[in-house]
């Protein structure tokens, strides 16, 4: 089966809104992402197009979600699941499809697919000057395809930590789109945990726009999915807006994981920081594509990108593509990349202290991730992530 046949699955889908109709015509004309497109060259989706997806079943709330100390919005196979959710009154929460106009379905094909098929999502609004604490947004998948559409809007000076979890069981396709609009001085800490089933496909697209002095502070931990991709478009629209796009990808066996970022410095004195760590075992394939664009208005931009890969197997592969496009003359932009293996001296030092080889390797993998993980101030979210990272090495082959 190819992209066209895959798309034909949705021929009978209900197309409700004008946006959905427009998206459908984009897809009719241009189809789904293919190998010939620059942005998808390193991440072929043939596996998805040929996949035999399961029929959806009843979702179960993992105990870790129930125990997480925050109100939660749980979606199951793309639909809000009120019975699995727990309310909050610190922010305004609605469900249904809401669009903030930041997403670009005309050019981003998976976003077009989401726009055509989205039937539900979360809209979270935090009033100006409010610290809304933490919200857990979770998606549990069991089969078929899900296209949730979320919108997060923070008023001036508002604060929110959004812990964004994706997991599930079986073969499915999860294609979420999330739009984030930050008013002046607002801060969204967006902590994503991608722990999808290894038979699944996770292709997430995030658009964030930060006004003057606002901060979009994001971190992705990705260790699931057969093919996983997170694509973030962050636009620093007002002076001194900041974006942190950090990520840790842990991939084993024949997993494919892609982290793609586009940061646009569209205003003066804007700041972007990216620390991206990829750990690859088995025959896994990691991809990092990071683009920093500085508009002529982006004088005094401060952009930094560091991409580091740890190869634990000779058969693993990394594709890295940093890109700087700078149209302002007074900027400070730098990027760096390293690819390495575990250090034999460090491994021996640990083992000489009685630490078994597998544990020693796990310690060094964790140490490699430290720079990306340490800035996560949210204790419960970080502890959760640690429980996903700690046992990772045990079956990473």
């Amino acid at each position, binding site marked *: 089966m190819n992209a066209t046949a895959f798309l034909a699955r949705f021929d009978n889908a209900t197309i409700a809104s004008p946006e959905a109709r427009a998206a459908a015509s984009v897809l009719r004309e241009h189809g789904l992402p293919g190998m010939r497109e620059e942005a998808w060259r390193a991440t072929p989706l043939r596996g998805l197009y040929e996949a035999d997806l399961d029929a959806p079943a009843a979702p179960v709330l993992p105990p870790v979600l129930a125990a997480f100390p925050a109100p939660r919005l749980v979606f199951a196979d793309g639909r809000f699941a009120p019975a699995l959710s727990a309310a909050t009154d610190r922010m305004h929460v609605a469900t249904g499809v809401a669009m903030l106009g930041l997403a670009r379905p005309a050019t981003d094909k998976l976003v077009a697919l989401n726009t055509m098929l989205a039937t539900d999502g979360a809209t979270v609004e935090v009033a100006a000057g409010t610290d809304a604490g933490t919200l857990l947004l979770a998606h549990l998948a069991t089969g078929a395809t899900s296209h949730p559409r979320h919108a997060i809007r923070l008023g001036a000076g508002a604060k929110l930590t959004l812990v964004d979890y994706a997991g599930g069981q079986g073969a499915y396709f999860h294609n979420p789109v999330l739009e984030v609009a930050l008013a002046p001085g607002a801060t969204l800490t967006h902590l994503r945990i991608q722990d999808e089933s290894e038979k699944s496909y996770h292709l997430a697209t995030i658009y964030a726009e930060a006004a003057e002095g606002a901060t979009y502070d994001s971190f992705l931990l990705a260790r699931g999915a057969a093919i996983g991709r997170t694509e973030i478009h962050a636009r620093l629209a007002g002076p001194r807006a900041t974006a942190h796009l950090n990520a840790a990808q842990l991939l084993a066996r024949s997993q494919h994981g892609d982290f793609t970022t586009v940061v646009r410095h569209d205003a003066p004195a804007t700041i972007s920081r990216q620390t991206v760590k990829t750990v690859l075992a088995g025959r896994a394939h990691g991809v990092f594509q990071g683009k920093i664009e500085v508009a002529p208005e982006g004088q005094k931009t401060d952009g930094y990108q560091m991409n580091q890969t740890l190869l634990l197997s000779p058969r693993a592969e990394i594709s890295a593509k940093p890109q700087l496009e700078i149209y302002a003359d007074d900027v400070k932009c730098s990027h760096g990349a390293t690819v390495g293996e575990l250090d034999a*001296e460090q491994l021996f*030092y*640990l083992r*000489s*202290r*009685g630490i*078994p*080889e597998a544990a020693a390797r796990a310690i*060094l993998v964790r140490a490699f991730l430290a720079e990306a993980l340490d800035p996560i101030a949210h204790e419960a979210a970080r502890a959760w992530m640690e429980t996903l990272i700690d046992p990772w090495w045990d079956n990473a082959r």
Partner: protein
Amino acid sequence: MSALLEITDLAADIDGKEILRGISLAVPKGEVHAIMGPNGSGKSTLSYVLAGREGYAVTGGTATLDGADLLAMEPEQRAAAGLFLAFQYPVELPGVGNANFLRTALNAQRRARGEAELDAGAFLRLARQELKRLAISDEMLKRNVNVGFSGGEKKRNEVLQMALLRPRLAILDETDSGLDIDALRIVAQGVNALRGPDFSALVITHYQRLLDHIVPDRVHVLAHGRIIRSGGPELAHELEASGYGEIVAKAAAA
């Protein structure tokens, strides 16, 4: 009764180059032996071969710890069996907290020996006690292992690990080099505190200075991958007075 550490005709190559050329040495239970010798004589190689570092081909001989074949064990098994190597050049571990590292090591060894693990609180109490004894500030527990440590701090961190892990056989590879006299005394105290019927040590040093503080039962001189002389503590003084040149030349002529 056989010695705790028994090395017989041990020979080892690095990249096909013969470095250890038939070393025989026995350290009985409760004894501290010193190995002295010029740079490049094979002292670190011997300590690494005993600890199980990769990259060495043992071409002959045996090494046993309390009768068990050391050379057949993985490095972590040797550690659990009671062997400890204080590295000449301790390794930096960015991203690994010192306290976590020490506790993981201690508990790994306890588990391997079928003993109960220490929880964070019990570990911290034990660690603080040893830190105090070694005049190391608590703050060193919070730092990453050896990262940004001065030469002396790195060596003290090795001695701290030894004090916590309580090996049956400690090999100290030039733990004295780069230390001032106060640090040297602290290191020596760390070793002397462990001395007893269940602790043996192989103290590798270039200088006699350390041996004023850790008085060895025996001194062995290693040159060109062989032990060319063994004697009592007075041998260290003789070497200090005459240098290695004479004794090495004499051995070569013999």
